[in-house]
């Protein structure tokens, strides 16, 4: 009886987290994407502790300089250090991306769970989703920026006001895909046995949703979260690029790109850094989402 090796018996079953991580590791693009995105976030948020030139510091004698040791990315027309401005801009752009993604996820999950779980809400909420999908998003965002800018500026100050406005505007115009995906998953989940057994022992609806439904729809939510960050960064930059985003002296990547296009003839290299930063973050986040989708999908993971 004792010659069954103990190691075989004691070895714990593989956990789901471990499986997901193994699958994720095998997706090279996703690993690279995660690495690049984490690097960008780290440089942008930790960089200012090491690179102490202020983003708003004007050194008019050092204006329009090319790359040098003192200013690795050069300086702009007022002699402000481009590297410092890129980090300051990145903080805004990435914060907007994360906050808008969070808002749209909360809205989308809320609508999706309600529509999937309660049959009488399904019709009205899905019609509402269809209506929102039929709205022309970019024109409406432009109109919203124009209309509420003054009011929010007055209430919260120019920077916080615009931040709230952009995050809210992007959030309430991008929750629809999440809502649809979550609703589909909830519809399938609520017919499953574990929900039935939870109900049969008298669990309340709110508890079933938080305890049994939500953890099971987490994977599609995470995938749409990554895509949501990418979408929000691009939208914010587009608004700044059209001149309807943050105020001029407040750098974001889109704003830096917009300012650089004025000097396109003389200093074409100046558009490169902000454009590269936007594209690289979006590309890495998209690859990350791709890998997450594969890793979290048990049908792909088994192979």
């Amino acid at each position, binding site marked *: 009886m004792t010659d069954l090796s103990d190691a075989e018996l004691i070895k714990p079953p593989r956990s789901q987290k471990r499986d997901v991580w193994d699958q994720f590791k095998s997706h090279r693009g996703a690993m690279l994407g995660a690495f690049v995105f984490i690097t960008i976030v780290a440089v942008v948020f930790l960089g200012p502790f090491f690179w102490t030139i202020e983003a708003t510091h004007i050194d008019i004698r050092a204006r329009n300089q090319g790359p040098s040791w003192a200013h690795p990315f050069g300086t702009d027309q007022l002699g402000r250090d481009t590297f410092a401005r890129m980090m300051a801009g990145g903080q805004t752009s990435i914060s907007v991306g994360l906050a808008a993604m969070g808002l749209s996820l909360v809205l989308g999950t809320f609508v999706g769970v309600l529509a999937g779980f309660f049959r009488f809400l399904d019709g009205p909420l899905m019609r509402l989703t269809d209506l929102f999908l*039929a709205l022309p998003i970019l024109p409406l965002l*432009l109109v919203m920026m124009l209309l509420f800018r003054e009011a929010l500026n007055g209430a919260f100050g120019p920077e916080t006001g615009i931040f709230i406005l952009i995050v809210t505007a992007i959030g309430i115009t991008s929750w629809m895909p999440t809502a649809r995906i979550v609703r589909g998953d909830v519809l399938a989940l609520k017919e499953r046995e574990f929900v039935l057994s939870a109900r049969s022992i008298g669990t309340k609806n709110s508890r079933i949703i938080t305890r049994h439904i939500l953890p099971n729809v987490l994977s599609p939510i995470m995938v749409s979260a990554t895509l949501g960050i990418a979408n929000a960064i691009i939208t914010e930059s587009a608004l700044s690029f*059209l001149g309807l985003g943050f105020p001029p002296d407040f750098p974001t990547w889109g704003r830096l*790109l917009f300012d650089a296009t004025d000097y*396109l003839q003389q200093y*074409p290299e100046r*558009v490169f850094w902000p454009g590269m930063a936007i594209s690289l973050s979006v590309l890495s986040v998209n690859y990350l989402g791709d890998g997450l989708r594969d890793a979290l999908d048990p049908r792909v993971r088994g192979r």
Partner: protein
Amino acid sequence: MLQFTVRRSMLAVPTLLFISLVIFLLLELAPGDPMAQVPLTVPQEVKEKMRLALGLGEPVHVRFWKWIVQFFWIEPQVLMDHIFGTTFSEGKLRVVSWQTRSPVMEIVIQRIPQTLWVVGVAYIVGILIAIPIGIYSAYRQYSVFDQAGTFISMVGYSVPPFFSGVLVIVIFSVNLGWFPSIYDTTHVVNDWASFKVQLNQMIMPVMVLALQITAQISRFMRASMLDNLNQDYVRTARAKGLGERVVVMVHVLRNSMIPVVTVIALGIPSIFGGAIITEQVFKVNGIGQLLIGAIQANDLPMVQTLTFIFAFLIVFFNLIADILYGILDPRIRYD
């Protein structure tokens, strides 16, 4: 099928009405004053009268109703008059822009050809590139070509048009000097030389838009081909001795095109939206540019009409996509 088409079209009407109401109410909150440009020397009473002349004195619901009547009843009459030479619309008030004091639709009609030229050509070019790429990368899945295609379409997704546009301007216009960076909308094509100039100035905006379109459609094409390549009917076709070319290009391709065609239809309105940025980069004088100008000048009738046109395009092409799907795929039965 007919019943489905009619029912869906009926459903589109309240949707559109609701959207126009949302846009109208949103604009109603506008704090901007259309009288802001009027000189300060103009007395207050005169300003008040000018405000009334713009139709701002009436309550909200009256103005909304008037806009609806003007847009859905009087504008079609104007169109009919224009085509058949009748006089239905004589003396009736049209939707008038506050900026130029001329009918909004006339300005829109002037601007649409510019947008359609650039966007339409880009869309066709994008589709023509995307479909062969999609077919080949599905047929040789995980080959070098497929990997490269995946990477390029990821880049196409990720690089926003306001960067790719500026980048091609830097490369081809500033450094190489091949193409003009500004799109000249007054250019008239009447002979071979002027056609070449037109082609030259169209290349860059078309390239930028086509990259995005190619990225999306080639992905769909690849996924759809992959779904079909593993089906039983493909094995049957090969087993009865059909050539590889016929199997892929006739049997698989025709079935794979069904979802792709609907995606192409769904993408048309979003391309109009995306063209707003591209038009801004290349200074194309199209409807996107018109919208931005109108927003900055607080020209509410113009903004309202343009936004509604965008919404109408979305609803219309959604309808087209649904109907196309039913027609192309006999397995889909809506009734």
